[in-house]
């Protein structure tokens, strides 16, 4: 049941189509446990599509077809795990903070009630632990019944991360989690992503290459639905092997 990630997330030969349009082409990528892996690439390259595959968010898109495998430990995420259980084990943080129209407390408790069915005292402890983990507890402990939407943008994003952490996932997916935030809130979320990765696998989509450089151990470059190159971030940013990566990093595309 959740806790520290022992196994990475491994995508094998993944291809994806929206109707007749192929969005991912034979992508194989290992996202190692207790590390941040960054996915970068131009808009429309498939990086967010790939991220959404990791917790089956594409399942409900009409005409979407996925081939290949996604493994978490010895389990295939598409065959051995139902989507309900999968989303407890693989949490998602979106581009724009998306607190539920509920109180701060209920935002964090929501998933715990649905997935783990804990008693009130356990629930209280989980809410406090999760809010503490994202550095929000001291700021909100006296107003837990206020609406989640009453918080600032950065606080709302941390609340959403607390909500994801509350069900003790092994993997946290982040889809441009700071693109709507100011530099201070961005810095806070980056610290948080690095901190979360000490126990969990973190995969982050970002357009901010400096952000990838700051927090990701490894970075993968996507282009036209293809995984062009993956390497240690330092290596990828200093000496990319593929000309397409080089051209993207140096702004010479097009």
């Amino acid at each position: 049941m959740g806790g520290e990630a022992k196994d990475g997330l491994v995508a094998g030969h993944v291809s994806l189509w929206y109707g007749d349009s192929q969005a991912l082409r034979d992508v194989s990528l290992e996202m190692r446990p207790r590390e941040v892996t960054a996915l970068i690439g131009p808009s429309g390259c498939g990086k967010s599509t790939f991220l959404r595959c990791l917790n089956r968010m594409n399942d409900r898109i009409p005409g979407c077809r996925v081939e290949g495998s996604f493994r978490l430990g010895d389990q295939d995420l598409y065959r051995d795990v139902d989507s309900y259980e999968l989303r407890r084990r693989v949490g998602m943080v979106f581009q724009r903070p998306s607190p539920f129209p509920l109180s701060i407390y209920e935002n964090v408790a929501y998933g715990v009630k649905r997935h783990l069915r804990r008693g009130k005292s356990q629930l209280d402890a989980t809410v406090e632990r999760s809010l503490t983990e994202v550095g929000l507890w001291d700021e909100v402990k006296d107003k837990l019944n206020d609406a989640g939407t009453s918080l600032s943008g950065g606080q709302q994003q941390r609340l959403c991360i607390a909500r994801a952490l509350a069900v003790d996932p092994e993997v946290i997916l982040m889809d441009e989690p700071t693109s709507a935030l100011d530099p201070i809130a961005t810095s806070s979320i980056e610290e948080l992503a690095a901190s979360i990765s000490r126990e969990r696998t973190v995969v982050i989509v970002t357009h901010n290459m400096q952000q990838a450089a700051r927090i990701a151990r490894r970075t993968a470059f996507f282009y036209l639905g293809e995984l062009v190159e993956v390497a240690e971030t330092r290596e990828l940013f200093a000496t990319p092997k593929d000309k397409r990566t080089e051209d993207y990093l140096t702004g010479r595309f097009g």
Partner: protein
Amino acid sequence: MATRSAYTKELNKLAGHVTAMGQAVVENVCATGRAMAGAGTEPASEVIAGHRATSLLGRGVEDACMSLMLLQQPLARDLRLVTAAFRAVSDLARIEEMAYQIALTVEEGAPAATSVVGRDLGELARRVATMVARAMDAFDSEDVEAAEGVFAMDDGIDGLYDEVRQRIVDQIKSDGEFAPSAPELLTIAKYYERMGDHAQSIADWAIFRSTGSYRGHSMGDAYE
């Protein structure tokens, strides 16, 4: 404001300025060599006259590197160029400073041209100038093989430096009149030997610019 097209121009300008500084430094070293070999103080005067301009060029390169880092956060080959230029220009500045010091010594009347080592010091200068020029060619063309060739040249410079030093020591022993000019001549010889080390360092940065791998052959900072 620094747009992407302006960024590309800035990078090209930076590379051009490093090349220009390299050429100026090579010319200065050659000029000191001519002075050593008996061409009088005129070559030394040229080095002294150009010292401020070359220093300003070096500062300009450093400022351009800082500016690019700050405003554009370069990556990949651009990052390697800016990093390598920042370090190579420091080596060029040190070589230029030593050439300037040699030129000042010549103007103050160091009797190199009339001494037993005048011709050898001229030869040392010629070899160092060739070494710096080749290191800079390798830097400009990102040619790893050419850069590797620079390291082999340093053995010849070290060997000639040892010969010159021994000749000066022998001359001090045999000719008491020679002794007062010996310290300057030893210093000049040592300057050329150190210039060779800086040329190797430039070759190291040429390799870094091309490959992203810094091996630090020179200046006693080898990683391997």
